[in-house]
């Protein structure tokens, strides 16, 4: 069934700053995260990881570990491979790509530091870790491929003997005639931009509890995942167990950020251990493990150039994005580097494109999902290049951006490579940001500081966020071995209260609250009458992709809206029987249904529930099925592209290379804002993560491919003193293809934030002529750039 009418709601809650229904129990310490879950008879496991980046395993002696009191079992890659397939990959954007897969435990060769080689299950984690120290693994070391250049060197050692080189695959998108555009351009600006390795680093590490019941043939799984249906389908593939025999439940999730979207080897290891011991097995990743076992991201080099005419019109964009993958492909393969190519034109009309992607394997940990999923690097390309062009052309940074935006009437706008942006008022959003920069007095602050000889700069970043991933068949066409729709069930019970069931997962973004807002408005009931149930594949419906790709509000929300709309229709039909009126004449307010325009009798949803479930005689219309429940599946025809313009005030100390972020704002458009307080929270959190990636966070691998930043002492997450205050401003351009008009917002900050910091640093250091291209911009790196710029200037004088 298709709803063609726009959803008519009273919008009592939608758009309001409503505090979250999730919060009281979390504030009281009554949450239930994965390590808070205990299952009867549960054992605990621990994993032994490779200390070497590249080596052949020549032998593993587990006998001493097995003999330790309290140890139930020890397994190696050979044991695991006997019952489990290799780890699945779901994204294949590059045709004929070589897909490097491995088992959850290495069988004969390790290809990154931290790769799992054996696992112990014991009475508790302390004993399991004791036993790890008793396992003896013999390695024969192999030559190492530590970074991108090493991987692409002509005589590079190969990670996979049957490959011709270390390139997993390459792909090119062309639109128009890039060669002609560059030949006829007045100006070409170019750069090599690189983003270091980083990861989402949720504060709660990953974990699972698996109970494999060999008699029932079932797997009962607790998993800290953003994608329970995907995990269930992939467990079924790995073990060749029917999907309906697998139940995946999620507890509270202590942050996801894409890292908990992916499907990890630990869930497979725990399943094997459970099957062998006949006991439920909990396997938690500790913080030290998280740095090598949770998906890494961002690691990319982007060599791009932009062609422009003298008046600032962009004529063409061309370049190559190198994805620095690890020693095996993660769940999403080369998806993120691919997405950075697709977003490299950003919000600008660029008629001529030649975009290359090259995905390369190295002896680093596998590449996975992280909030932003490629788009932060696409943003670096267009935002860095357009600012370089503005400088060369002597144009205002806002003016050159405004000149190249598609006008609102040009939407839907095809970018030239895969994505079609659904709607946008980019210039309005830019103007909104600029006006707020003025209002906040940043320009005066900058002028005053500069008069004192301080280096204060204002940076800008305009971003697009393709959200609501996505139309299932198009995703399949693009190489995804999975779908993108969302399913919801909205049920009114015999007492007239409402329960929403969805496959979306609450990872802290507040889905339970916004879903209650949407359903309460659509049904005309108090928000307190709505509860949301998620996180159980046995009772909750299917979510195509999972909670990722900024889908929760857009697709999950749209399915709930449409189901609620239909349910309201049935509530009215039952109420009409009770009121002896026509359903078309009814209205509902706070759960009370009456005839519009009269002060006559009314009924409540409680009466309707009673008529639909219990006392049906003469009360439920004869042609109505008992119960009050509607199911909706929403598969969008297009994605919803939100956008925003961020600005940042910073100060740089050119003596030390340190950067202080003083104030930050973002003008944003995510279509319909369901709850501005939560939208602001998403924007702020994303920006903070990007600021960490821009200035502090890096998973540093040395020349031997050993990780040098494996703790919070050297992988620096931003703290409260690093992150500035935020100001957010919204405009609403409803998504034309999404019922309710919502667009995604979860990834906005991460996409905009890195180029934003760079823009502000460049501006602060105008007198030196610095252009930041390498991230994170650590103090030593910035100092080096300042010194180089200074000596270059002196040399040219």
């Amino acid at each position, binding site marked *: 069934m298709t709803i063609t009418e726009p959803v008519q709601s009273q919008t009592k809650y939608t758009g309001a700053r409503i505090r979250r229904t999730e919060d009281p129990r979390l*504030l009281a310490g009554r949450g239930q995260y994965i390590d808070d879950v205990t299952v009867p008879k549960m054992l605990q496991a621990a994993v032994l990881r490779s200390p070497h980046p590249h080596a052949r395993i020549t032998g593993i002696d587990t006998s001493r570990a097995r003999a330790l009191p309290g140890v139930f079992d020890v397994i190696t890659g050979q044991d695991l491979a006997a019952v489990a397939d290799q780890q699945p990959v779901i994204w294949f954007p590059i045709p004929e790509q070589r897909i490097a897969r491995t088992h959850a435990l290495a069988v004969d060769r390790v290809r990154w530091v931290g790769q799992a080689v054996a696992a112990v299950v014991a009475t508790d984690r302390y004993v399991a870790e004791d036993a790890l120290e008793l396992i003896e693994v013999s390695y024969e070391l192999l030559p190492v491929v530590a970074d991108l250049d090493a991987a692409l060197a002509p005589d590079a050692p190969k990670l996979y003997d049957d490959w011709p080189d270390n390139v997993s695959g390459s792909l090119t998108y062309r639109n128009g005639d890039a060669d002609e555009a560059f030949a006829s351009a007045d100006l070409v600006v170019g750069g090599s931009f690189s983003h270091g390795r980083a990861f989402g680093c949720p504060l709660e590490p990953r974990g699972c509890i698996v109970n494999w019941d060999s008699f029932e043939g079932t797997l009962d799984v607790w998993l800290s995942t953003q994608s329970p249906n995907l995990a269930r389908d992939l467990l079924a593939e790995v073990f060749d167990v029917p999907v309906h025999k697998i139940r995946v439940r999620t507890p509270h999730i202590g942050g996801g950020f894409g890292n908990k979207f992916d499907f990890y080897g630990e869930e497979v290891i725990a399943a094997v251990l459970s099957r062998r011991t006949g006991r439920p097995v909990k396997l938690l990743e500790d*913080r030290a493990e998280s740095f090598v076992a949770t998906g890494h991201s961002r690691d990319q080099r982007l060599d791009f150039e932009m062609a422009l005419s003298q008046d600032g019109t962009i004529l063409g964009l061309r370049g190559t994005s190198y994805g620095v993958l690890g020693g095996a492909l993660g769940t999403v393969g080369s998806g993120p580097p691919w997405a950075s190519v697709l977003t490299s034109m950003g919000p600008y009309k660029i008629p001529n494109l030649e975009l290359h992607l090259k995905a390369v394997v190295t002896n680093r940990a596998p590449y996975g999902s992280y909030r932003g999923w490629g788009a932060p690097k696409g943003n670096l390309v267009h935002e860095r290049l357009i600012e370089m062009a503005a400088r060369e052309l002597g144009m205002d940074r806002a003016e050159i951006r405004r000149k190249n935006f598609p006008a609102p009437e040009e939407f839907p706008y095809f970018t030239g490579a895969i994505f079609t942006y659904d709607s946008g008022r980019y210039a309005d959003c830019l103007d909104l940001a600029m006006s707020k920069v003025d209002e906040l007095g940043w320009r005066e602050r900058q002028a005053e500081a500069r008069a004192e000889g301080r280096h204060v700069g204002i940076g800008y970043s305009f971003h697009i966020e393709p959200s609501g991933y996505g139309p299932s068949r198009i995703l399949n066409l693009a190489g995804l071995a999975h779908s993108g729709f969302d399913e919801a069930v909205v049920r009114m019970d015999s007492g007239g209260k409402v329960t929403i069931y969805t496959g979306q997962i609450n990872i802290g973004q507040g889905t339970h609250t916004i879903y209650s807002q949407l359903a309460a408005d659509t049904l005309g009931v108090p928000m307190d009458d709505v509860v949301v149930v998620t996180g159980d594949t046995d009772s909750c419906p299917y979510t195509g992709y999972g909670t990722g790709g900024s889908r929760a509000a857009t697709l999950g929300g749209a399915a709930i809206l449409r189901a609620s709309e239909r349910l309201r229709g049935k509530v009215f039909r039952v109420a009409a029987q009770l009121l002896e009126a026509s359903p078309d004449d009814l209205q509902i307010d706070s759960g009370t249904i009456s005839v519009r325009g009269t002060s006559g009798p009314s009924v409540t949803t409680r009466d309707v529930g009673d008529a639909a479930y219990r006392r049906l005689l003469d009360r439920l219309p004869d042609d109505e099925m008992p119960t009050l429940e509607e199911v909706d599946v929403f598969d969008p025809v297009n994605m919803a592209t939100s956008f925003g313009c961020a600005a940042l005030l910073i100060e740089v100390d050119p003596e030390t290379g340190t950067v202080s972020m003083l104030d930050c704002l973002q003008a944003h458009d995510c279509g319909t804002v369901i709850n501005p307080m*939560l939208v602001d929270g998403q924007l*702020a959190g994303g920006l903070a993560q990007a600021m960490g990636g821009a200035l502090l966070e890096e998973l540093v691998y040395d020349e031997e491919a050993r990780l040098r930043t494996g703790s*919070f002492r050297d992988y620096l*997450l931003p703290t*409260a003193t690093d992150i500035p205050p935020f100001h957010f401003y919204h405009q609403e351009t409803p998504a034309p293809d999404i019922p309710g008009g919502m667009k995604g917002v979860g990834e906005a900050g991460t996409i905009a934030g890195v180029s934003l910091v760079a823009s502000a640093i460049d501006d602060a250091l105008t007198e030196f002529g610095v252009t930041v291209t390498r991230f994170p911009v650590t103090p030593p790196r910035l100092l080096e750039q300042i010194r180089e710029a200074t000596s270059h200037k002196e040399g040219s004088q």
Partner: protein
Amino acid sequence: MNDKQSVSTTINGHVYTADCEPRLTLADFIRHQCGLTGTHLGCEHGVCGACTIMVDGRTARACLMLAVQADGCTITTVEGMADGDRLTPLQEAFWNNHGLQCGFCTPGMLMCATELLESNPDPTATEVRERLSGNLCRCTGYDSIVTSVLDAAEKQRS
């Protein structure tokens, strides 16, 4: 190494007594032996602050203490803050100002903010940021946490 020692502590007003291995961390004791899982472990090396609790009236990181060190101590965890189902003004302020998202860092934040407000009932935003700079939050970007603490301070003063 495995000779157990008797540990007796008062947590949120209840006395918990158990025989513990000397190597058992206080965090694991509180979470698994006492069942008070509101104290979260985000790093187990004393950096993230999620496991912050009150030991004898001062904040401490439960992952950096051994259970045996807490013998005879009086401890408050996040479960001991609310009065029944009535949240404290600080907890209310976090709720009203979206001072939490996933909630994992929140117990530690609440502990440190409580200690701050006890010694400084009228802190500036900068003072709040400095006091909370030992507690990592990956979700909020901190600004809403700072707002929450300032809001609680204002309400507590009035």
